[in-house]
């Protein structure tokens, strides 16, 4: 055990040989999350409305306030502005302004947009339509058709939570594959690999220490993101232990892959690039922006070949309190990824380092 701890300590000291890579691997996904999350889909939209002067206009603003999720947040936050402010719309940050104008004596809600994308236009238009529908239903009385919503989950969870949750396996993967790749490749570049080649101790100690160090680095990266996500959204996983257990096979898989990449390429830059492609590819395919089960077809089949897809489905219950996918098959897949890559790393190490040439 003292030998293993010494090997582990040495592995951490080697961080000094690639400090910028460690910083990028551990902090970059969190930074990306913090930068991207404000621009992701939000439940409540600010919608500017010109100061109401008639009962109809006041009723529209009231209806806008009522539009929302039956179990969560309102969808519209009406912000009343003066006609003078509305006139300066082009030079303001308003995305749109609603004004009630008379068209042939009929009150008409006129929605004017600034330079925004078509998806936002659609979102803002739908929300105004929902508000108008409430007014219409009130006028129709018994003749109205009422829509009832029955959400699957008991509570609304913002999309930023899903996005962060899906980034947890990604940052775990990326940190392990990045650091594992560069540390291993650097040993060839520095020629320090000769130290490992001639070492009389069993290779399982050497690989065990490196893998443990990579798994801990990957957990550090995931921990930083988890804290940032909780701070940003106020949502925390139901069980930190369970999150750790789900991320563990991802970390083992990626650590093994990083070592394999480093052993095969023996150069830092190709190892980093390959790790980046593997990490980002696995993230995008593995449910980065939505559950893979919702996509179906070839995309879903491909996504099942990444550990991320299984990890995201397993993490889902930690954040949403509901299970998606098939947990036993996801557990099996994650176990197979870990054991398979671990075995491959061991044999690659024997082949590239210990083999007598």
């Amino acid at each position: 055990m003292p030998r293993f701890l010494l090997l582990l300590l040495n592995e951490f000291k080697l961080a000094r040989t690639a400090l910028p890579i460690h910083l990028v691997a551990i902090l970059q996904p969190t930074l990306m999350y913090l930068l991207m999350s404000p621009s992701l889909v939000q439940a409540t939209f600010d919608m500017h409305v010109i100061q109401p002067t008639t009962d109809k206009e006041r009723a529209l603003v009231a209806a806008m306030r009522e539009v929302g999720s039956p179990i969560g947040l309102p969808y519209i936050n009406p912000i009343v502005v003066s006609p003078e402010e509305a006139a300066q719309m082009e030079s303001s940050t308003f995305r749109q302004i609603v004004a009630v104008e008379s068209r042939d004596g009929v009150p008409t809600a006129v929605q004017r947009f600034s330079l925004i994308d078509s998806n936002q236009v659609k979102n803002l238009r739908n929300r105004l339509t929902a508000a108008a529908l409430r007014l219409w239903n009130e006028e129709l009385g018994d003749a109205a058709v009422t829509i009832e919503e029955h959400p699957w989950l008991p509570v609304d969870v913002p999309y930023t939570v899903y996005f962060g949750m899906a980034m947890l396996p990604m940052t775990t993967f990326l940190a392990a594959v990045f650091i594992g790749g560069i540390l291993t490749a650097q040993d060839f570049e520095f020629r320090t690999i000769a130290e490992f080649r001639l070492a009389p101790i069993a290779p399982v100690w050497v690989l065990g220490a490196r893998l443990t160090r990579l798994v801990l680095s990957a957990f550090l990266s995931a921990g930083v993101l988890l804290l940032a996500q909780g701070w940003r959204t106020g949502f925390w996983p139901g069980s930190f232990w369970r999150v750790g257990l789900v991320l563990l096979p991802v970390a083992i898989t990626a650590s093994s892959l990083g070592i394999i990449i480093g052993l095969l390429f023996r150069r830092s830059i190709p190892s980093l690039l390959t790790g980046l492609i593997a990490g980002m590819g696995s993230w995008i395919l593995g449910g980065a922006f939505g559950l893979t089960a919702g996509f179906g077809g070839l995309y879903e089949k491909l996504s099942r070949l990444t550990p991320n897809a299984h990890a995201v489905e397993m993490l889902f219950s930690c954040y949403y309190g509901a299970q998606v996918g098939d947990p036993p098959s996801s557990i099996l897949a994650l176990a197979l990824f870990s054991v398979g890559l671990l075995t491959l790393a061991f044999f690659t190490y024997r082949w590239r380092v210990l083999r007598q040439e």
Partner: protein
Amino acid sequence: MSSAIALHSVTRRFGDMVAVNDLSFQVQSGEIFGLLGPNGAGKTTTINMVTGLLRRHDGEVHVLGFDPQVEPRQVRQRIGLVPQETNLYADLSAVDNLWHHAALYCADLSVVKERIQELLQLMRLWERRKDRVGTYSGGMKRRLALARALLHDPDIILFDEPTLGVDVQGWHALWEHIKMQQTQGKTFIVSTNDMMEADALCDRLVIVDHGRAVALDSPEHLKSDLQRDIVTLRTTPAIQVPESVFTGLGIEAVTRIPPDQLRLEVSDAESIAGELVTRVVAAGRLESIRIARPTLDDVFLHHTGRALRE
């Protein structure tokens, strides 16, 4: 003395190229044994076969009775390697580099701390122990690499080109350290292409050329075995047909050293020195003359027909 390392008819090929060809020698325990030869002679290949890093294609290698190809772990526990290119972690300190080695090689970790201090003090690196190795001079790096190779107290140290990248002032310090370790009972194999280093350091050496052993003995014996002195002279103009000038003087061999020097091998230079000068002066203007005992370079030249540096 018992044999620490024994090579018998060892051959190693890389594709069609034979790097080591039927090489045999024995290294006795406690001696400093040299592998002397030009670059590409097969010295590093030989060292790598002794460590077990490379497989041999023919012959036998035994290190303290173990075959490195069959029992690599037993061999690795007993050897220390200082490779040609110093392979230290430049961003770590000397102490951290040694701890890294200790975790991989030292059987008893409880004595490592004291041993690191002892070795760093011995190699005069203790004051700089916490500095990044990247800031060390070439000589300091080689000394640290030697300290690292000694850390797990091996019986045999294989030192590939000890003074490569070391300034002249650092050479003697390094040789001193190697000799000091020899007094502690360590066996060294030193590979070098520097005859001065081989002469100063080695108890015995094998001269290797194109993977073959061309001579094997102590430096003194190798030189005295030539049984001749070396006369180097420079004239203006250069002597064009030396054979006609030096007839009857018992010259064993004449080699032209461009642009205007001649190198003569003669059994007893002192006895013909007067006549030699007379004939040279008659042939032209004598600029310089030097009579010397043979060096290892002369031994190499004698056996291979070319200088070690060529």
